[in-house]
């Protein structure tokens, strides 16, 4: 074999902040990332993590079982607060599910090369988050067994769903979003599955990856169509991301409840979604890069960019809050102004102020370069923002409902242990799926990394490990 060395260009940026650490070749990236799936042994950390999250999945199953046996009443919901944790969690998860497709699609369209190393697991995260979110609209039904009446076909007595309801819009938005994200994710995986197929050391793996790879062989014609399709998918997914959370926002905006009935909801829900999405990306990426030694691929540059995006979206969210409170007061409408006052000083004031701290005050730290470059600080910060965004949904839903027009109908809301079990359970489900993903599929897009190697001008050489695929 020829081993002619082409000089490695000095990296243009300060060390540790380039999109790909120097010294990598087509082979090394392939083996390193593929290796995690193919040859790496299960560490005790992974096993422990998986065990714990799986336990939480069992908790979720138990909570759902009890819910179905006894009815919605096991939750804390009441009249007037007929929506509780279920819808809060739904909106929260959907929001988290926005970063993945946003990163893949938007950044692809904007030709952001740094997206390459985070889009794969961000997309996976999206899928799992949306899956968790999708549970809640079903679970919160009084009569779960009839959920299929939401599916658009002339069902019982030839009745259709009532298409004016924002809940039906949700059904379409969420299912479309999930499907498109899934397609997008899978299409991205095909060439990598081919790589794994060709590296697999056991027949079983070869067969499984082979089937999934659909017989991909990297023909240039294929690459051409593939890229066009992928680009178009990105072009479609981008507006989809915006539409989905706008529609979720309309669940509230299209109602006439003070605190919900507000035209700013769609845009500021989208911003909030991406905000929380990036927070979750960081909460996952930072441990991940350490656990699997991916610092070379997920560099400080990535963390830095995510942080910047969080800052931007965070500011939009802050503007959303401000305009809500201000308009409430400025409208001179007794009900609107009351909502603002009640949020800040009423029985749920604590939630409101915590929300403002986590979502408005804390992110301001991101103006500081040092913070953006410190994985530890970013990790803490991203967790806080996740909490803050959950609280935002809590504040929007609970405080608006518990005191609305007629004081005679004012009430209060207390979650029960089943509400909490369900929330914890979905967290478990999400992480459990993620644990499985990062062991059984390449967490970074391999072929795009090879492209990156090519673009950063590093070549096809050392160290050339003899991979088992050669053995025969």
């Amino acid at each position, binding site marked *: 074999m020829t081993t002619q060395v082409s000089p490695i260009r000095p990296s243009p940026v300060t060390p540790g902040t380039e999109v790909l650490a120097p010294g990598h070749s087509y082979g090394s990236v392939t083996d390193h990332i593929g290796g995690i799936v193919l040859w790496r042994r299960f560490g005790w950390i992974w096993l422990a993590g998986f065990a714990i999250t799986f336990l939480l999945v069992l908790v979720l199953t138990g909570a759902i079982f009890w819910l179905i046996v006894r009815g919605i009443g096991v939750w804390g919901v009441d009249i007037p607060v007929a929506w509780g944790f279920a819808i809060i969690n739904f909106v929260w998860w959907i929001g988290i599910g926005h970063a993945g497709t946003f990163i893949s699609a938007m950044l692809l369209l904007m030709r952001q090369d740094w997206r390459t190393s985070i889009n794969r697991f961000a997309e996976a995260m999206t899928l799992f988050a949306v899956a968790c979110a999708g549970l809640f609209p079903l679970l919160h039904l009084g009569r779960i067994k009839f959920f299929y009446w939401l599916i658009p076909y002339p069902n019982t007595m030839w009745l259709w769903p009532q*298409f004016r309801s924002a809940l039906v*819009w949700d059904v379409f938005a969420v299912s479309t979003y999930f499907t498109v994200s899934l*397609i997008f994710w899978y299409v991205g995986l095909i060439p990598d599955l081919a*790589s794994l197929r060709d*590296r697999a050391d056991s027949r079983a793996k070869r067969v499984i990856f082979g089937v999934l790879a659909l*017989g991909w*062989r*990297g023909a240039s014609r294929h690459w051409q169509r593939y890229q066009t399709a992928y680009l178009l998918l990105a072009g479609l997914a981008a*507006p989809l991301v915006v539409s989905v959370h706008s529609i979720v926002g309309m669940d509230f905006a299209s109602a006439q409840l003070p605190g919900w009935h507000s035209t700013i909801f769609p845009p500021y829900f989208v911003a909030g979604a991406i905000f929380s999405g990036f927070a979750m990306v960081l909460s996952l990426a930072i441990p991940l890069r350490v656990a699997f030694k991916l610092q070379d691929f997920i560099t400080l540059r990535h963390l830095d960019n995510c942080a910047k995006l969080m800052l931007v979206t965070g500011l939009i969210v802050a503007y959303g809050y401000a305009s809500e409170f201000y308009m409430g007061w400025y409208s001179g409408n007794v009900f609107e102004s009351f909502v603002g006052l009640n949020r800040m000083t009423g029985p749920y004031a604590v939630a409101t102020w915590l929300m403002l701290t986590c979502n408005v005050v804390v992110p301001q730290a991101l103006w500081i370069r040092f913070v953006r470059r410190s994985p530890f600080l970013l990790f803490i910060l991203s967790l806080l923002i996740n909490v803050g965004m959950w609280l935002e949904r809590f504040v929007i839903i609970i405080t608006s409902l518990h005191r609305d027009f007629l004081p005679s109908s004012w009430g209060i809301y207390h979650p029960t242990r089943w509400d909490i079990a369900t929330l914890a359970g979905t967290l478990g489900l999400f992480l459990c799926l993620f644990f499985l993903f990062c062991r059984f599929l390449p967490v970074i897009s391999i072929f795009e990394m090879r492209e990156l190697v*090519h673009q950063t001008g590093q070549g096809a050489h050392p160290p050339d490990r003899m991979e088992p695929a050669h053995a025969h």
Partner: protein
Amino acid sequence: MHTKALYGLMAEFDAPEALREAAARVRAAGYTRAEAYSPFPVEGVTEALGFGRTRVPLIVLIGGIVGAVGAFGMEWYANVLSYPWNIGGKPPNSWPAFIPITFELGVLGASFAAVIGMLAMNKLPQPYHPVFNAPRFGLASRDRFFLCIEAEDPIFDAHATRRLLEEMGPVEVVEVPQ
């Protein structure tokens, strides 16, 4: 010596530039049935081999239109023809309320069209293909670049073709059995 019929001759390169160059020269030599294989899309190879533009975008457009029109049609039918309820005093054809679903299904249709169209035109899934018979072809999904001239090519000649390929300084040139 070959029990099986010959599918083609395949040259292996270790750099995308080499592949692009080879592709150009093969094309210049008048070969029409050649195909390049690479671990990632290499710019210019398809042009060098002289393939035309893809029709995937058209399919996507059609898919999108079908999805959107279908969606609005469904909503309109359900509310105006099938079951014209009085819902909160709104007219049967409350078209503004029908927009979100129309948009969503439009996107869904287009996305399906994109993927299915792409796979169909690539004739995937395709479990077996002769090129996999090349011993080192596995590297096509790692770090090697292959150019294969098929035996069906009108001007294919076992020796001439091999010579042409070897002139381009490949890692090696192998025969790919059918």
